[in-house]
C-alpha cells in the first residue's frame, strides 16, 4: 500500500513536470535545456513580404542598382533574419558589389541556416564562397569550396 502511494506520487510528479521538450532520460533535471534532437531544422517557410523584397532586390541587381538591392535585402533580413535565402541573397549582392569578404561571410551564415536537405541553397552558397576565394587569390580555399558545392 505504502509503495503504491509513493509510486503514484512519483508518477504524478513525473507527469506534471514533463515539458513539451523533455530532456531524454534525465534523472535529476526535469527542466533541462533543449538539445539538438528535437530542434531538427525544417525547410524554412518564406514569408510573402520577404519574397517580395528579395524579388525587388534581384530586379535591382539585374539593373545594376546594387545599393538599392542591398537595401531591399536588409529590409528582408530585419523581417526574418533566420531565412537562409535572405543571407544568400545578401551574399550575392555583396559579391556583385565587389566585397568578397562580406560575400563569403553572408554565404557562410546562410550555410548555417539551410537545412541539410536544401541542396540547391547550399550549393549556391558554396559557389559564392568559391568565387569569393578565387577573387582573393585563395585557391586552396576555393578548391575546398568547389568540392563542397558539389552534391
Amino acid at each position, binding site marked *: 500500500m505504502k509503495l503504491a502511494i509513493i509510486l503514484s506520487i512519483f508518477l504524478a510528479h513525473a507527469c506534471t513536470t514533463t515539458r513539451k521538450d523533455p530532456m531524454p532520460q534525465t534523472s535529476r*533535471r526535469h527542466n533541462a*535545456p533543449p538539445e539538438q*534532437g528535437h530542434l531538427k531544422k525544417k525547410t524554412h517557410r518564406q514569408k*510573402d513580404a520577404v519574397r517580395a523584397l528579395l524579388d525587388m532586390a534581384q530586379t535591382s541587381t539585374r539593373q545594376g542598382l546594387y545599393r538599392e538591392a542591398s537595401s531591399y535585402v536588409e529590409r528582408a533580413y530585419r523581417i526574418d533574419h533566420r531565412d537562409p535565402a535572405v543571407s544568400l541573397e545578401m551574399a550575392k549582392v555583396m559579391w556583385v558589389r565587389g566585397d568578397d569578404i562580406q560575400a563569403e561571410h553572408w554565404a557562410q551564415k546562410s550555410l*548555417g541556416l539551410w537545412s541539410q536537405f536544401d541542396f540547391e541553397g547550399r550549393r549556391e552558397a558554396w559557389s559564392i564562397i568559391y568565387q569569393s576565394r578565387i577573387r582573393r587569390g585563395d585557391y586552396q580555399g576555393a578548391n575546398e569550396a568547389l568540392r563542397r558545392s558539389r552534391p
Partner: protein
Amino acid sequence: MFRRKVNFKNTLLLIACLVTVSSVVGLVYLDYNIRQTFSGKKWRLPSHAYARPLELFEGKHLSKRNFLRELAETSYKQVKELTAPGQYIDNGSQIKIYRRAFRFWDEATVEATLEIHIERDKVKLLKVEGERVPLLRLEPMLIGGIYPHNFEDRKLVRLQDVPGVLTDALIAVEDQSFYQHNGISLRGIARAMYANVKAGKVVQGASTLTQQLVKNFYLSSERSLKRKLLEVIYSLLLELHYGKDEILETYLNEVYMAQDGPRAIHGFGLASEFYFGKSVSSLSIGEAASLAAIVNGPSHFNPRRYPDRCRRRRDKVLSMLKASGKISELEFLAATREPLGVSKYKRKRKASYPAFMDLLKRHLARDYDNETLRGEGYRIFTTFDPHIQWATEKSVAGTPLSNKPKLEAAAVVMGMSGDIEAVVGSRSPGQLGFNRALDSRRPIGSLIKPVIIAAALESGRYQLSSQVSDETIEVSMENGTKWIPKNYDGQSHGDVSLYDALIHSYNHAMVRLGLDIGVEQVVHALHKLGIKRDIPKNPAMLLGSLGMSPLEVATVYQALASQSYFHPGGRSIRYVTNSRHEILTANPVVLEKGLSESSLHATQFSMLGVMYEGTGRWAGNLLGDQLRAAGKTGTSNGMRDSWFAGFTGDKLAVVWLGYDSYKSTRLSGTSGALPIWFRLMKRVAREPFGFPKPPSIEYHWIDEETGKATFSFCQGARKFPFTNQVEPSGVAPCIKSIDPVLDWFRRQFN
C-alpha cells in the same frame, strides 16, 4: 571775399562728392550683401533624426495600442472620414490611413490610402488603394533634431507646391499690391499714414512682403529711422535683382509662424505640419486662410490658445479673398463654416529619447562635425524602435526601482541584426543626464562566465561535460597578496561540469578554469566577441571585476548569441542623406567572424541551461518554450551591481541596476535585473531562441555526475554537445541506486 566764396563752394563740392562716393560705396556694399545672402544658401537647416520606418507585413506582431501611439506621434489625426494625408480612421480591428508622401533613403512613397487589419496584435491584411499587398511601410517618426544655435526649424517648400489659395490669402492680407510695387508701396504708406493719423495711434502698417522679408532676413526688429531707411533701400535692391516669385517663395519659407518649446517654427511648410498635421499642398481653403491669418501675430493669433480670435481673423482673410475674386461665394461660405481643424498639440518632453540621441550623436561625430549637422538639413535614419523603447521604459519603471528611490538603472535592447533599438540611461528615461547605458563601466560579475566557457571550449582542451574542481582556490596576485574568491552560497561543490559551473555560477570552478586556460585566452575571446579596447589581464577579471557598459555587454552577448558570424559594434545609424536626398552615409548590416560555431553552440547550450535550471530558472520557466531564452545573471562584489544579459530568437537585452555611489543594492542579478529583463522580454520578444546544431557538434549521452560516457537508458544520463569530433571518455556505471524512488526523494529534499 572772393577767395572765401570759392572756398565755401569747394567745401560744398567736396562734401557733396564725399557724400556721393560714400553713398555709392554704401549702396554697392548693400547690393553685394543682398546678393551674397540671397543667392547662396539662405538658411541653416537643422538635421532631423528619424526612428526606423514602420515596416508592416502580414503576420507581423503589432500592438494596436503602440501602433496608434506611433501614428499620433507622427502627427496623424484621427478623423471620421479620410480627406487628406495625415489622417486615420480607427474601426476596431481595421485601421484606415491616408499616408503622407515620404522620401526614404532608397525610395519615395506616395500619398495613398492604406487599410491595415490587426487581430490579436498581429497584422492580418494589408491593402494599398484597395489592393492587397504583401508589405508596406509608413513614414518614420521624428525622434529629434540637431538644430542651429538659434533653434530655427523649417521645412522648405517650393512655390509650385504651395496651393494658390495660400499665396492669394497671404497677398490679400499682407500686401495687396505685391505684384505691382518695386519693393515699397507709396500708396500703402499714404493709406497707412492716413489711417494712423485718423485713429491717433498706429493701427496700420505699410510694410510690403518684400520689406517684411528684408526685416527678417537682414535687419533687426529695432524701431528706428535708420533701420526703416535701410529697409527701404534693401527692398528696392532686392526687387531690382530678383523676381517676384523668388521673393515670395523666400518669404513663405522665412516667416516666423510658431514656437514649440525652444524650437522656433519658421515657414509655411513646417507650420502646416505643426498646426494641421499635413503637408502644405494638402491644405484646405480654410486652413490656408488660417495660416495667412497667423502671420500677422503668431502668438496673438495662436489657433490653439486663442481659437476664437484666430477664427475671426481667418474669416476676415476669407472675406478679403472673396472680395478680390479669388474664391467664390460658395467656397467662402463652406470655408467659414469649417472648424479651425487644428491638430492636438502634444507637449514634447524636453528631450524625448535622450539616451538614444546621445548615442546617435556620438556615432554621428565619427563622420560629421557638429556645425555641419546644425546647418545642412541632413536626414538621419536610425535603428531606433519606439515600440521597443516604450516597452523598455515601462519595464524599467517597475520593481525594484519603484521601491528604491535612488537606485539607478540602464538597459539596452538590440535586434538580431545588430541594430540598437532602445536605450535607457537612467531611472528617469526622459531626462538628460549621465547616460549609464554608454558611460557607466561597472563590474560585470558573472556575465563574464559564458566568455570563460567559450574560451575554454575554443581552446579544444575542454568539453561542456568536462569536470573541474569547485574547491576553494587561492590566487597569488602580482603585488604579492593572496586572493581567495568565494562562492555565492559560501560552499564548495566538489567536482562539477563546466555546464554546472555556469548555470549555478560557481566562482571557484570558473576561476580555476579561467586560470587553467589563461587570462589571455579569456581576453582574446572577448576581443573575438567584438570588444575592441584594451582589457587589463588580471585574475580578478575572471570573476567579473572588469568594468563594462551595458552597451558593451550587449555587443559581446550579441556575438555569443550568433552562430559564429555576428554583427559587430551595434548600429544606431542606417543612412544619412542630405537635403537633396543623396546618401552621405550608408551603414549596411555587416558580418564579422567570431568564435567557432561549435564553441558558441555549446556555450549557448549552457546559457539555455541558466534559464532552464540555473540562476534564471524562474524567468525561463515563465517564458516557456514559446520564448525560449538564454542568458546569464551577474552580481558584482558586495552586490553593488545587479546585471542580466540574455536573448531570445529576435531580441537581446541587457539590464543593469546599481547606485552611482557604489552602495550595495542588496540585489543579486536574479532578484534585481532579471525581473526587469523578464518583463521587457515578455513585451518585446516574439521568437524563441533557435538552436540549430552545426555539423561540427555531436551530441553524446554522458553521466551527468562524472561526465563519462553512458547510455540513454542509464540513471543520470543526459545528452551533451561535444565539439571537434571528441567523444566522452570512460564509461560510467549504468545503475547507481537500487532504490530510484528513495533516491528521487533524497534528491528532491537535498
